[in-house]
């Protein structure tokens, strides 16, 4: 398993849910569903190594997440969060190129291979024609694709996304889920994302983690509704 947690308690000072047992492998997409404030972002931060587990174990590629050096961890896991405050002058290409930072030397140079990966990531997210534009000037939906391209340039095994579809229209949202599923299969990458779009999660994710009432329940995406885990989301 790529990421595996046993009896994991996560939160800032107090646990936000009962201890969680969960595992995800490369090539799988996992959707985190639940109300705002239920702990989805906190769990993503814990998976990313930005928050230490309160209790239990959390292993990435067979090694405790806390045992990784920062640079080594950044080569394995990327957390994409929306709503960054962007500098006016930063172009799409410069932003995506930051994804190569974990591989750069002390002077932050980029090799030909780095530039090739950046180009490929831009192409992957259909951003080639945008690369010279300032990220701050793009629409929210376009910017979400830029954020994702940066994470792709980081060439990680585990991609964590915190509501990446928050600012997207319906066609873009569908396209995002299709792309994430394709990328996870093609690159053997595990994708864990939080979303409020239950329908897309059911269709494109392999597993669903439902947050609510102080616990997190896991189910295969196709069975979550039958098991009553999505009753709270019924129209």
């Amino acid at each position, binding site marked *: 398993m790529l990421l595996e947690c046993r009896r994991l308690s996560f939160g800032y000072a107090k646990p936000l849910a009962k201890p969680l047992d969960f595992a995800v492998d490369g090539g799988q997409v996992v959707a985190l569903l639940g109300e705002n404030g239920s702990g989805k972002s906190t769990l993503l931060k814990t998976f990313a190594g930005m928050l230490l587990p309160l209790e239990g174990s959390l292993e990435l590629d067979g090694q405790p997440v806390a045992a990784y050096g*920062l640079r080594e961890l*950044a080569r394995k896991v990327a957390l994409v969060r929306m709503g960054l405050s962007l500098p006016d002058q930063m172009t799409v290409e*410069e932003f995506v190129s*930051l994804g190569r*930072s*974990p591989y750069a030397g*002390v*002077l*932050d140079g980029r090799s030909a291979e780095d530039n090739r990966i950046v180009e490929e990531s831009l192409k992957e997210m259909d951003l080639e024609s945008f690369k010279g534009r300032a990220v701050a000037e793009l629409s929210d939906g376009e910017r979400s694709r830029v954020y994702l391209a940066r994470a792709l340039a*980081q060439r990680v095994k585990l991609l964590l996304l915190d509501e990446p579809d928050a600012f997207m229209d319906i066609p873009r949202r569908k396209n995002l889920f299709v792309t994430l599923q394709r990328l996870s299969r093609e690159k053997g990458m595990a994708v864990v994302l939080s979303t409020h779009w239950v329908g897309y999660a059911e269709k494109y994710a392999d597993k669903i983690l439902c947050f609510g009432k102080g616990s997190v329940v896991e189910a295969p995406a196709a069975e979550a509704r039958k098991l009553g885990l999505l009753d709270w989301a019924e129209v």
Partner: protein
Amino acid sequence: MKRIVLCFVLLSLLAVLLSFVTLVSGPVDVPWDALLSSQIFWELRLPRVVAALLSGVALSVAGLSLQTVFRNPLAGPFVLGISSGASFAVALSMLAGFSFGHFGTLGAAAAGSLAVTSLVLGISCRFRNNTVLLVAGLLIGYFIDACISLLISWSDAESLRVYVSWGMGSFGRLTCNGIGIFAVAVFVGLVLIGVSVRYLNGARLGDEFARGLGIRVPLYKKLVLLGASVLAASVTAFCGPVAFIGIAVPHLAYLMFRTSNHRVLLPASALCGAVIALLAGLFPTYPLNAVLSLVGVPVILWVLVRHSAKEEL
């Protein structure tokens, strides 16, 4: 890329030209054939060129790195009180009658700026709010100015005269003996900031983002603040409090080079700062800070207006 190379070439040529003009001109006329053998050339004009170059480079790089670390376009050695800290320590040394040669003034300036940097860093960790930080920096500056006023009121006429003259800022104060120490201090500051370029590129999007790129944020933040303090302190020690360059020049560099990559922005700011300082140094008989603002403000306003006009089109 073409634009970046062109800007670097133009600025370098301008810096060479201004250095040459500063070396061959001045209030006293020296014949061309006697220039290289004259004392005026070696003891006045050369140190003045070096002072302008080092100060311009140091303050603009310090300003750029502080604006990046605090993610605040108004941050700079002066606004955050770092230069005031250096001034206070130097004032304490001058007005209290202590003098230990160049190391003494530099040491005092470094200690003063480091003390204020630590305070500002503490405030930034506690509040994480740019406005609070800015207000805190200004308040620290006011508090320090008040302390300096008290020192002035207690000091004798001669100490006061020396301090007031120092406070106006001047590139003409550096002597041949001081060039080495000034250059080493600036070099140390530049190295501390230069090795943090990976952090600076990530920090523009926040410390959490930088950490996600595998950057040891606390370590590099300290290195950058230390570097900026050393740069600001060394200029304050050798040329007095020099305003304007630290806050304004990074914006000039952004506008000219149109990039957010610090691998380009750091040398770009350094060159822009050197050119502005050399330009201001062409008027050695006037107070430096007044000349810097009189020469620099129109230049930067012109670039800003021209840039905005292009954006509108």
